């Protein structure tokens, strides 16, 4: 079933004056199509200057996260038939905008680096691989599914107010390695995330859980980290 949808898109064109404006496009889409298809159609047929990130278009790469009708979502995962006729699209909140819907994710990835997002194990590796039991794998299974689209961190009111806050995404990454039984740098990571801008800034607002396209319960993981930090004596302040 085909239907007309109005896309109201927040534009940011740095070389134009004024650089910010709202554009409206009216296009026909069928009920199987997604917001991303609409954006591609607009770019192809209405306005070639419209800029947005996309890659896989199947909810795996996490490139097309944007604010759709007031909530962060992946454009490739939002069917237009589930949305009202007027679809309002903005870039991810509180990150610097480069052009239109493309935001500068540098800040986001820097936070990720702060939690040492790689396996640290000084023990000599076994002949083939470091074995992990299925039970141990299940402890971190949910956190592994993160695609790092940035929806969670940019939906967090604490991050809006304090850009130094590590944010749900980086904390989830920390969880992924701290609770990995093959990893040995738990204390080092806990010291990094229990500082002034770490886990204690999380107020359990659940905005990140609401927006996660992979349906990860991020707050649950942060709360587990908090309990581990208390148990291990990392109760705040830089160590």
């Amino acid at each position, binding site marked *: 079933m085909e239907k007309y949808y109005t896309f109201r898109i927040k534009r940011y064109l740095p070389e134009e004056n004024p650089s910010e404006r709202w554009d409206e496009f009216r296009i026909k889409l069928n009920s199987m199509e997604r917001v991303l298809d609409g954006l591609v159609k607009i770019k192809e047929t209405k306005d070639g200057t419209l800029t947005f990130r996309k890659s896989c278009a199947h909810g795996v790469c996490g490139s097309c996260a944007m604010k759709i009708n007031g909530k962060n979502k992946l454009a490739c995962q939002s069917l237009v038939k589930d949305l009202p006729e007027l679809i309002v699209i903005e870039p991810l909140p509180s990150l610097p905008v480069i052009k239109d819907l493309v935001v500068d994710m540098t800040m986001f990835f820097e936070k990720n680096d702060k939690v040492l997002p790689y396996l640290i194990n000084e023990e000599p590796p076994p002949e083939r691989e470091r074995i992990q039991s299925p039970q141990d794998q299940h402890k971190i299974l949910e956190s592994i599914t993160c695609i790092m689209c940035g929806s969670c961190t940019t939906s967090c009111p604490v991050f809006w107010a304090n850009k130094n806050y590590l944010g749900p995404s980086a904390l989830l990454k920390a969880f992924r390695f701290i609770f990995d039984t093959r990893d040995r740098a738990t204390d080092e990571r806990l010291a990094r995330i229990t500082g002034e801008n770490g886990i204690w800034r999380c107020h359990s*607002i*659940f905005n990140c859980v609401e927006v996660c396209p992979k349906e990860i*319960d991020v707050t649950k993981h942060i709360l587990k980290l908090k309990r581990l930090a208390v148990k291990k004596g990392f109760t705040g302040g830089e160590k």
Partner: protein
Amino acid sequence: MRYRWNTGSIAWLVHRITGIILTFYLIAHIYVLSHLKDPEAYQKIMSMMKNPIIKFGELVLFAIVLKHVFAGIRITLLEMGVSTKYQKQLAYAGALIIAVLWFVGAFYFLQEVF
């Protein structure tokens, strides 16, 4: 910036606002208490408290305290390990208990006036 509200963020905002109000209330409360130096002053202030406007204010304060207490209990339960799957149900259950307690409390509060 506009962003869609959900149960968690509303619960957090109300918790914050009631907390700020209670901070100011506590300062005012201690200020009033510091004037209770002799039985005469005590009687004077207590008769002031019978004023219906003050009674109405007390009811509002009661609602704020209840809301703040139950928001705190919800967060404490979540931090202690109650599954975050139930965060919304906890918020709604809290709101229900607050409503019941407030009506029961209001009944006793207003009995003193009428």
